[in-house]
């Protein structure tokens, strides 16, 4: 039963991830990213990592992607710009590097599944265990993320405040 669900969600995940990259309209990309995150969260829940799954849904599907959607819709990319990027001469090179990366990746997965004999048990990622680890073993990195957030907050404030003086706003509205 579990494996049926796994294959179902894995297929949806791969299809959705492909749509993210291949869709012509950026808002379709963002929407299929929601589907991809949802199926990824489902796979985590199948592994009994409930907390990670829920956080993934709340943070990514809930907050980050809504933000993406706003940005994509507000940016209003014109078609010519998109077409220009698509015809870039570096595209074949990108495909080549991507293909090389994929082959290498598959080789690594194949080689390590051959040597790895033990199967991982369930992750059991409940809030209690994660909280306990965060406040003991990983106390320092956990506290330091607050400084990462502080840097981001100061950055946003300094970049956003007073960026639009009266003459700039007129230019934008015209």
């Amino acid at each position, binding site marked *: 039963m579990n494996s049926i669900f796994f294959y179902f969600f894995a297929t949806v995940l791969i299809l959705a991830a492909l749509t993210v990259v291949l869709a012509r309209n950026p808002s379709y990309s963002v929407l299929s990213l929601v589907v991809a995150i949802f199926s990824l969260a489902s796979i985590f829940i199948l592994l009994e990592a409930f907390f990670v799954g829920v956080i993934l849904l709340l943070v990514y599907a809930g907050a980050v992607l809504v933000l993406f959607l706003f940005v994509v819709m507000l940016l209003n990319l014109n078609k010519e710009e998109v077409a220009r990027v698509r015809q870039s001469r570096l595209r074949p090179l990108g495909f080549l590097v991507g293909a090389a990366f994929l082959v*290498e*990746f598959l080789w690594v997965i194949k080689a390590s599944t051959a040597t790895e004999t033990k199967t991982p048990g369930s992750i059991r990622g409940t809030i209690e265990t994660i909280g306990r680890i965060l406040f003991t073993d990983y106390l320092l990195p956990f506290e330091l993320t607050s400084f990462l957030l502080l840097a981001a907050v100061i950055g946003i404030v*300094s970049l956003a405040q007073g960026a639009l003086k009266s003459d700039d706003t007129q230019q934008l509205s015209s």
Partner: protein
Amino acid sequence: MIPNIHWNLISLETTITAVLALFILLDILIGKTQKDWMGNLSLVALFAMILMWFRGDHIWGQMFSGMYIVDSLAWFFKGFFLLTMFFVLVMTQQFFRSLEQRKDEFYLLLWLALLGMLLIASSADFLLLFISIEILTVSLYVMTAYLKRDKHSIEAGMKYLILGALASGLFLYGISFLYGAAHSTRFVVIQQFVADQPTNPMLLFGFVLIFSAIGFKIASVPFHLWVPDVYQGAPTPVTALLSVGSKAAGFVILLRLLFGVFAPLHDHLTLILAILSAVTMCYGNLAAIPQKNIKRLLGYSSIGHAGYLLMGAAAGSTLGAAAITFYLLGYLFTNLGAFLVIVLYFVVSKNDEISDYSGLSQRSPLLACALFLALMSLAGIPPMAGFFGKFSLFIAAVQNGLVWLAFVGAANVIISLYYYLMVVKRIYIDPPISAYPISVSWPVRLTLWLAMAGMIGIGIFQGPFLDIALAAVKGMF
């Protein structure tokens, strides 16, 4: 079980958090003033921290179950970053004098960047390392785009952000592979795993990804494309921080990984590192020749210096590691001295074009002399710090059988002399574009003298400084 905290080991970092909290509070209380109180107070706090650094020497240990370590290498580089911060603070004070822009957030970001660098020097766990790198780079992204009215600055910030995010992604992906192989992010555990199974494919793949991300930080060749635009567009103090602080942070990680965690792999990596070093040197020095903007020129030259430094990494011996450390110490005084002159000249001329530097020697002999000495040290002319640094790197390479690499390095020194001397010709021989002398206030003058003393002193009295470098790296072998 709550971990024991030894406040002695983490005193510098906790001081920074206190300074940040104090500044945010004072900023609200004081409000808008014309006085640069935050810059002056920053300098005072930094001097206090440098005193703490001297007092805390030789207290080694580890905390948080081996996640955070303080050893000779960490302590040396903590001092290195504090010194870098001093020069950058002086530059910031001068730089913003000429611009009508709030600078309080800039100081806060500088302190956060310093926090990130100090933590990088002490990280012995990939998770902590990642968060420290992010604290450093997120503050650098914002500082790069800080001049909102200058479209070059915004463009530089955008480019740095996008490529930096890619590098962070590669780094995290690499960590996930290492975790998958060794089931831990702790350096000691992974080191044990590397010693047991050096050819595990997951491990190698993870290493390649992590190395790419570090290549981005130190600006070595396949990952160097962001350097010229970002160096040119960023406010000059940020360029200085990028070229010295951020690069040195990259090399601390590289030293810890190549000589510590992945040391058993080093024999397989020698050739790759040597080729990367040669290509990076040649690219940086050849591309610097046609440059017209001094910050862009120093950007390409900093790619070239990453190449020289990688030579020590390829050598892989104790001498190689010590040579990297020694070279970075000389590079600190040299490059920051050069950038200080660029900042002071920018305040007067609002321009970074090399053609504008014509006749600088007649307008300000001190600035001209400092820039001349810095360029000579960057090129590697005998009495200067750059010469002995390159010399020890070449010796390390030759000792490890990489004679061809030392020859490539020597050829590059000659190429680099050409474009450095073109700038020197502008300064000393060409007629000045304006007759106004440039005045420099006495604290800045003292800083310039300190930079020059560093360049010459390290070059002449190599012995004690090489001993410091050897002592810093000996803990790893």
